[in-house]
């Protein structure tokens, strides 16, 4: 039962600061200082004002997401003014959910109380690992004990949803070690878990280390084993996957905001490198803080680039994203939105995939099985879409 509200939009706020840069991260982040953060907040408020029209056009907004970076580096007063600006600009619904990312080392009972008072519903902690060696390898600034403490404090603070992130597929990590971590995670009783397989992004310190053969990432066999273990073990513990890397104890704890990305629901992103999607066009902000700031201060919406999502691109994204979620592809919705049958040219392969146990066809949906989820990228790359001319002649009337 999808809990996504299809009608309401989302707002994403990118906070680009971190106290140090993790060696696996390729996000738009930087180590700032108090003055830079203050400038950033002022600029961000200006950007929200510059975008008032497009935020207005979003209509009802029922999610706000503070991601980064490390939003927990912002001060209470800074957050306060941001919330007020957003509340006065966007049409926030009564049940609007606010998502907030925090690092364990920044968590104190007082800060959590502030966030809760400001209206944060979902607190996501960047835990990443539950033993100190792994944390040191990942270049994190907290210890396992701090992470556990932060999770407990977050639960006590009364957030509707407490979630944390873990990474797996670290060099040398075997199934036994990872199962142990999962057990420890479950014992901390979060409402939601994100388990990301370590990905070596290009131009990161990890990328260099791997190329210099300082260490080897997990091989494909191990990756597949850990992937399967994650899904099966968490399921047994009552956490159901709803996407490749996301698990919830109850459907109401699914990330309402992230699901908007996967279902082409409009959103506006503010802050450096943030992306926006209005239903037709995806646009992205200047990635560098200074460039982003210069644009905004000159009174320009700080867009670095955009692309319009034509029906063919939309179709490909619907397949690619749909196959990453356990709800799968809603065929009727695709037909409505695209005006053509997304499966028209993939018939024989589809039957094979169903026969091979990669996909299940039921109730107007194509859902990936766990085996299908594991190879969703290949399925999407092999999915033959109807040729352009065909799509257009059938629907342009």
């Amino acid at each position, binding site marked *: 039962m999808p809990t996504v509200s299809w009608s309401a939009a989302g707002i*994403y706020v990118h906070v680009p600061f971190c106290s140090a840069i993790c060696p696996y991260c390729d996000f738009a982040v930087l180590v700032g200082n108090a003055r830079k953060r203050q400038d950033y907040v002022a600029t961000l408020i200006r950007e929200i004002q510059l975008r008032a029209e497009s935020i207005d056009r979003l209509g009802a907004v029922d999610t706000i997401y503070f991601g980064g970076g490390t939003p927990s580096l912002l001060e209470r007063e800074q957050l306060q003014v941001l919330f007020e600006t957003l509340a006065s600009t966007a049409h926030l619904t009564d049940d609007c959910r606010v998502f907030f990312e925090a690092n364990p080392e920044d968590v104190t009972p007082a800060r959590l109380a502030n966030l809760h008072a400001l209206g944060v519903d979902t607190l996501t902690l960047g835990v990443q690992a539950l033993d100190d060696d792994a944390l040191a390898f990942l270049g994190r600034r907290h210890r396992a004990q701090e992470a556990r403490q932060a999770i407990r404090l977050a639960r006590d603070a009364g957030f509707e949803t407490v979630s944390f992130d873990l990474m797996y597929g670290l060099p040398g990590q075997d199934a036994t070690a990872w199962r142990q971590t999962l057990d420890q995670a479950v014992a901390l009783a979060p409402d939601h878990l994100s388990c*990301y*397989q*370590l*990905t070596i992004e290009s131009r990161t310190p990890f990328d260099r280390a791997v190329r210099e053969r300082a260490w080897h990432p997990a091989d*494909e*066999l191990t*990756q*597949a084993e850990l*992937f399967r273990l994650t899904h099966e073990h968490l399921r047994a513990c009552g956490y159901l996957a709803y996407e*490749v*890397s996301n698990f919830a104890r109850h459907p109401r704890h699914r990330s309402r905001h*992230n699901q908007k*990305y*996967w279902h082409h629901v409009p*959103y506006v*992103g503010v802050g450096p*490198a*943030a*992306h926006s*999607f209005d239903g037709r066009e*995806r646009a*992205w902000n200047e990635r560098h803080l200074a460039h982003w700031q210069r644009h905004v201060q000159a009174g320009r919406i700080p867009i670095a680039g955009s*692309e319009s999502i034509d029906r063919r*691109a939309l179709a*490909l*994204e619907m397949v*690619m*994203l749909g196959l*990453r979620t356990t709800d799968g592809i809603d065929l009727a919705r695709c037909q409505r939105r695209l005006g053509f049958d997304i499966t028209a040219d993939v018939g024989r392969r589809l039957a094979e995939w169903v026969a*091979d146990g*990669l996909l299940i066809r039921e109730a107007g949906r194509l859902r990936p099985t766990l085996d299908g*989820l*594991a*190879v*969703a*990228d*290949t399925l*999407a*790359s*092999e999915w033959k879409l109807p040729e352009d001319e065909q799509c257009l002649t059938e629907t342009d009337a």
Partner: protein
Amino acid sequence: MPPDSLVAPEIPDVEKIRNFCIIAHIDHGKSTLADRLIQQCGGVSDREFRDQLLDSMDIERERGITIKSNTITLPYKARDGETYQLNLIDTPGHVDFSHEVRRSLMSCEGALLLVDASQGVEAQTVANLYLALEFDLEIIPVINKIDLPAADIDRVREEIDADLGLDPFEAVLCSAKTGKGIEDVLEAIATRLPAPKGTSDAPTQALVFDAQYDVYRGAVMYLRIREGRLTKGDKVLLMHTGKRYEVEEVGHHGLQRVPRKSLEAGEVGYLIAGVKSVRDINIGDTITIADAPAEAPLPGYQEAKPVVFASLYPVSSDDYGDLIKALDKLVLNDAALTFEKDASAALGFGFRCGFLGLLHLEVVQERLEREYNLNLLLSAPTVRYRILLEDGEELMVDNPSLFPDPSTIKSTFEPYIKASVLIPERYIGAVMELCRDRRGENTNFSYLAVGRVELTSEMPLAEVLFDFYDRLKSITQGYGSFDYEMLDYRLNDLVKVDILVNGERVDALSQLVHSERARPRGLHYCEKLADTIPKQQFKIAIQGVIGGKIIARSTINAFRKDVTAKCYGGDITRKRKLLEKQKEGKKRMKMVGAVEIPQSAFIAVLKTDASK
């Protein structure tokens, strides 16, 4: 219009004609020297000037090689006050095109032997010199690139003396790049090369040494008049083919064609006679006047025979028609290229093509892909084997699919070459080893000069096709140069190795190889395919087999997980673009059974493995 200075007097004085070519190792500056000579003689205005003036094909200019012969007539006012007609005949330098080189040399009285002042004498320099001497040409050694800091003129003089047996003090020094010494080169041509023999009143004999296709005029023959003359309106006879034509136009080559009333004994020029394509002409043929023919044709007629064979398949079967059209067009100007229909169970319809060598093959493939925008798959190149059957019948087989049932074969023979390698002394051991590894026989070496060695080896041509040159370059750190000539056919033990992908034979990957080679080659193919065929949802077995016997195998495991961990806001665009790229790549794949084989796999198997 050509510059006035290019317009020569209508009837030239044969004593003032000099026909010459430039022979050199690749990269020794042949095209630059030619450019400079043309410039110096006023054959081109500064506005018209561009590098490699005589190379007209894109591919020639890009790779810095000459494929087709070309000529230009230059008037040169010498220091003695006389004006000479210098005919530069530009010849290809590569061994693949040696038949064209021979014919060009036959049209000259002299040659500039160009040697790089820093590189010194190389294998092609020696090979080309031998060729030139075969045709009794007067040789002027020219030491080029004397402006380079690394130039070592004394050493090069020694090499000219020791390696080539020429008088080193006759060498002219120049820098084609800066223009220094160019005047001396021209003067040497005028004073040291002999004038052609022959008289305009004798029965006409003209050697066709090349032909180019012109869209408007058909085949344009390049010729050297040995005896007699050719005039517009003459009825001519091509003595080997027996075909008759009427001369529409004769003339000299400037940068464009410059028509003239006639071509006289000793001259080099062109002839247009309504011949449709270069295929209708046999290069090396002799032209005479139909009503008053010469007694005999000139020597030098030799059919250009392809020695390397490979099949070309369009990646998309829709392109088959375009491939035919493209090949038909290519052969208009490339008489040495042969093709006939071929069909592969795995790759569909294509063409079996014959080439003069690997460079020729590469050039043809590249031109088809670039000029005709075709996506092609190429089968493993092979040589032409001679097969003697038990029943006494003899076959020539250049296509693995036509290899007869082994039980009917009495014996097999393969073509041998004489390879000549010039190397610094320190590499003797490594190169001897390489030759032995390539079944080289009678491998010998001799010192050309202190520290420099010429190594010769008789080896199967097939062994050279497969990455020999790459290996040589790599083990000699680029110092080795290589040339070869065909020798003969020798008895060997030939087998056919088939490649099976999930039990299905990929006929385009079948190869004929020496039995000793079968296992390593089979393994190489299996490993390369395992590296280049992407993982699929099932396990893929790749096997090399001889008949029913498996000699090599590798496996591609099924993929188990490939989904990326994260996909939020901005990742979506990035990820979709990646998918689009993958989908585009799949268009260049061929299905064999249920397995998709990318074009790169067919190419990868032909490449050398750098780690070995």
